[in-house]
């Protein structure tokens, strides 16, 4: 009742505001979507169509998947998807185990060096990744990690302040009395971590997995340094195939780009809420 009452009595200024509001939303949504949509349009065009029509003209058929097939084959994207999958599984598994364990120890125990370790991680987040790669590259070389998937995986597992903070924040809200009663029941600290903390941390784990997952999936700079060989390229890396001689065949390139961002799109549609909350949680400290 009250609502209809309000709408009836909206002032002229109120109406202008409504128009401005929706105009802004539509405008910025259009801006956000346009580059991607133009890419989708082009991905469905045959070579002749691409050469003869304007880029914004719709393709004759949205069922022409030839470019997708060609792009998938030329960039060896099948292999790349497998590699990205392997990297994701191990990096996420490693980062979650390492991150939750560190957070557990930092949050639940007082010991000399606790503050120092927190500060070491915090300080590390200040160092820009690109600058660090100047010398990380040398160390990766010394360790024999270059051009090996495991080297890249081990490197990617480290230095992730944001998930550690998400875990610590979350643990602060898990009452210590739970630990204490478990101790009285004779549980070891590892059992407390494994049977109490990990299950209760699940929402935080999902959040940080999605954030870290998207970052890992999209990472290309370090990958371009350490994963040069064709058969160990990740999806982001596989797109480099389209530089050079293929550099102007945009119908093919666009198809490749669209294939590469489909997994992110699917995850986004399924896990919107977790992604948003991850962004917000990560920003508080980061």
């Amino acid at each position, binding site marked *: 009742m009250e609502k209809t009452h309000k709408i009836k009595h909206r002032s002229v200024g109120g109406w202008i*505001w409504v128009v401005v*509001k*929706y105009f802004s*939303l539509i405008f*910025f*949504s259009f801006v*956000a*979507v346009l*580059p*991607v949509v133009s890419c989708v349009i082009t991905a469905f065009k045959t070579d002749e169509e691409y050469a003869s029509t304007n*880029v*914004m003209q719709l393709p004759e058929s949205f069922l022409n998947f030839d470019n997708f097939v060609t792009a998938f084959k030329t960039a060896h994207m099948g292999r790349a998807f497998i590699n990205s999958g392997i990297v994701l599984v191990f990096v996420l598994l490693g980062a979650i185990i*390492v991150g939750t*364990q*560190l957070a*557990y*120890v930092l949050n639940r*125990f007082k010991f000399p060096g606790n503050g120092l370790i927190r500060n*070491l*991680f915090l300080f*590390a987040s*200040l*160092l*820009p990744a*690109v*600058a660090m*790669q*100047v*010398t*990380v*590259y*040398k*160390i990766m*070389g010394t360790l024999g990690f270059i051009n090996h998937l495991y080297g890249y995986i081990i*490197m990617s597992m*480290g230095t992730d302040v944001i998930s550690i903070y998400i875990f610590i924040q979350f643990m602060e809200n898990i009452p*210590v009395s739970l630990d204490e009663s478990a101790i009285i029941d004779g549980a070891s*600290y590892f059992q407390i971590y494994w049977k109490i903390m990990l299950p209760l941390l699940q929402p935080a784990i999902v959040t940080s997995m999605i954030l870290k997952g998207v970052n890992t999936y*999209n*990472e*290309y700079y370090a990958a371009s*340094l350490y994963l040069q060989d064709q058969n160990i390229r990740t*999806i*982001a890396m596989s*797109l*480099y195939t389209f530089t050079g001689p293929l550099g102007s065949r*945009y119908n093919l*390139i*666009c198809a*490749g*780009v669209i294939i*590469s*961002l489909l997994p*992110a799109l699917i995850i*986004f549609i399924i896990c919107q809420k977790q*992604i*948003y909350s991850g*962004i*917000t949680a990560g920003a*508080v400290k980061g």
Partner: protein
Amino acid sequence: MVAKEGKAAKQKKPFNLAKWAKSREGQKTIIIIAFITIPLLLLLVFTYLPFAEMVKFSFYKMKYATPVEKRVFVGWKNYIDVFKRDDCFSALKLSLYYMVGALLQLAIALYLATILSFKTKCSGLFKGLMFFPYLISGIAIGFIFKFFYTRGYVFDTVLQWCGFNLNDLPYWLKDQSVNNISLVATSVWRYFGQNMVLFIGAIMSVDKEMYEAAELDGANQFQQFIHIILPSIRTIVTLNIILSITGSLSAFEPPYVITSGANGTGTYFVIMNEIAHVSQKVGLASAMAVVLLLIIFAATIAQKLIMKYLFRNADEEDEIKTKKKVKVAKGAN
């Protein structure tokens, strides 16, 4: 007697160690060491060791493959070069473009976040559409925008729809008067949705009753923004404004993936990357990295001071809150 006791203690020691390992204290130490070793090792090997190496390398003339004994110690020469060469330090002035872009991006994000925090139809859809660019990989963005800005392609077509003549339009990535702006725009495009989601999160954490009370008092949405939303999220807004300064100093992705730094778009890090991995002047690149890191540290310390100064009152409030929290936590302990 004393000797006997000493003997007894000695005999007890191994027994004690086993017992200690079983005791709470011992278990605590074991679990701390077990859980901390790997993350700390990773942190040291991939962050602090490279950091130390970087400082060391910056005093040498060397390539990645140069064996240790053939590195030439050159003292401060690399640092002097950083400031003397035309392509190094002067590249930092491009950061200004990225700074302006970052501020614009924050303004857009704040505006949209405010709109979406009021009742809006399809707000989930709008939010999703504007956020999605954040999830696209940098390299894909490079291709998308090379295509987008190509002469006569997407951007030009849209401008022609708006009545512009193609001949009046510049080459967006080649023309040195606009190409940096074109690149900054891609960065704004990529991150404004992410910033918006962040601000929406901050706005949502404001007590809902405040809006309801304000609405009952007849405050319109603009007044609500000025008097309720803005004060309550000023910390995160200021934090982001300040972060955008350090962020723009280390701008790298847009020029790296779109123009590879050609036609005067090479930011400091793009040039450093090239010096390191293409020309393999590792010493000079390390010196460049160290110089920028020092600038970033200085900026970070300045940020902390500014934040402290700006929010000294809010801090006091926070302190009271944290004290309460600590009390609660202690109570739980």
